[in-house]
């Protein structure tokens, strides 16, 4: 008890205990936290303009320079196509470095014994992905690659070679997989998706521009076949000179190409209140949700 007395909070509370009952008008802000605004009288704020000019006259806009009215400063330079023109085309990825992944596993946010994908990363509420501004998922970057200790089974949307090497050196399995916008929205916030009463969507294959990346075994694409990936894994180990652990970390079988969540088939409806799962039985719906399809060309 005596220890507590020396803390400012306890001393303040003792003052409060002896004080009179605190009423609504007693609560006030700290002295000096807010100062009354500075009254700018007419005399001292003309700044060389009369009051009318300040209030009514149109002012030259930002970037206007003395001179040609139709050529403001920002028009003096030639445009560059690859500056911002392809904003509606290029895909943005959220960087996830290996050291941050290690820290998340250390502090218990992510369970390394289960497969890690967009849903597990987004359920920690530490990442914001917005598919509407063409953010297509996570990019595993290589900061912290040299001391990555955990054998994990991870699936990201883009990964550099050194990140792949780090994960495999630690005995983990890494796959890069594509989420189209609809599936991505479901994967980011499954609870909100189910509470909107939506059907679990079918994940479409990558469009023409991206299928090359995801069919390439070098990037551990999910469309490449396992044997190629295995060879690549071995010769990557040889190139980078680390010894591959004998068996690869396999927590669960990989998701199928059109599956968004582990263990939940596409086309199923989940009711969170009753903990039930429904799936269609008539032919056309089952085929609609099982036919593996590629994303539209300009997605």
């Amino acid at each position: 008890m005596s220890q507590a007395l020396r803390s400012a909070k306890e001393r303040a509370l003792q003052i409060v205990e002896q004080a009179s009952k605190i009423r609504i008008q007693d609560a006030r802000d700290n002295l000096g936290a807010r100062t009354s605004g500075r009254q700018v009288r007419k005399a001292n704020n003309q700044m060389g303009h009369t009051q009318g000019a300040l209030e009514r006259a149109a002012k030259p806009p930002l970037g206007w320079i003395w001179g040609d009215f139709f050529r403001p400063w920002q028009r003096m330079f030639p445009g560059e196509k690859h500056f911002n023109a392809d904003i509606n085309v290029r895909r943005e990825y959220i960087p996830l470095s290996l050291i941050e992944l290690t820290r998340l596993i250390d502090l218990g946010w992510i369970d390394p014994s289960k497969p890690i994908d967009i849903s597990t990363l987004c359920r920690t509420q530490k990442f914001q992905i917005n598919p509407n501004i063409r953010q297509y998922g996570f990019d595993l970057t290589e900061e912290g690659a040299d001391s990555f200790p955990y054998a994990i089974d991870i699936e990201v949307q883009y990964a550099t070679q050194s990140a792949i090497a780090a994960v495999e050196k630690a005995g983990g399995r890494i796959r890069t997989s594509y989420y189209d916008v609809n599936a991505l929205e479901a994967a980011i916030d499954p609870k909100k998706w189910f509470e909107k009463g939506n059907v679990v969507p079918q994940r479409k294959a990558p469009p023409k521009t991206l299928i090359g990346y995801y069919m390439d075994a070098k990037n551990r694409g999910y469309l490449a076949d396992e044997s190629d990936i295995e060879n690549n894994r071995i010769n990557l180990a040889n190139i980078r000179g680390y010894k591959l652990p004998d068996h690869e970390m396999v927590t669960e079988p990989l998701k199928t190409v059109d599956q968004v969540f582990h263990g939940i088939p596409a086309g199923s409806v989940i009711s969170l209140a009753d903990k039930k799962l429904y799936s269609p039985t008539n032919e056309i719906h089952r085929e609609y949700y099982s036919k593996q399809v590629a994303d539209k060309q300009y997605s």
Partner: protein
Amino acid sequence: MLASTSVSKASNLARIVILPIRSFHDRSSVPRVVDDREKSSAKYTDAGYNFRYHQNGVDALPRIPDCKVPVARPDFKVREPWSVENARFGQNDYIDLLGDGSIHPAQLQYHTPTWLRGFPGQHRANELVKLIHYRNLYDSKLKQNSPKRWHELRKRIKYLMMQHNYNKQDELNRERDLGLWDEKPDYTFKDKSRRSFRDEIP
């Protein structure tokens, strides 16, 4: 709490001070109330009124003889601290924190017009944003059933647009995020024709 800044004693070794860190400049982190402007204006007038305990009948209040100007007296305001509204003032303001999070206090503002319920207030959104929000919600009804108000609304919006986009000086601080619109890459690269906002006046 007064700022306690202390500079360590210069050690006797001949140490070169690499980065002369001064203590805080004279203005401490919390601005001081130095001169209170209200103090000068709030003069209290001694009306010379002394309360006589044992007096019956109306007492002569201090008045300027034969002055026609009536003395201003605030009318009596009935304060019922324990009427139902006052007793229950502020109830359910923390319903999203203390409840299960399904209701937000913005939904409980029954006394506010429906289109303003939960809309950012005066010091966040200005009149132009509010009118545009009103117009986007009710333009079909306005056009059909109240043309004069539709005309007035458009005139007022146009006037405010000219004020805010042309006559106003450039804003000094960062644009305020009102939380009314979601982010989108609004880049109309190729669309050179749509270059002036006047093109789209409905």
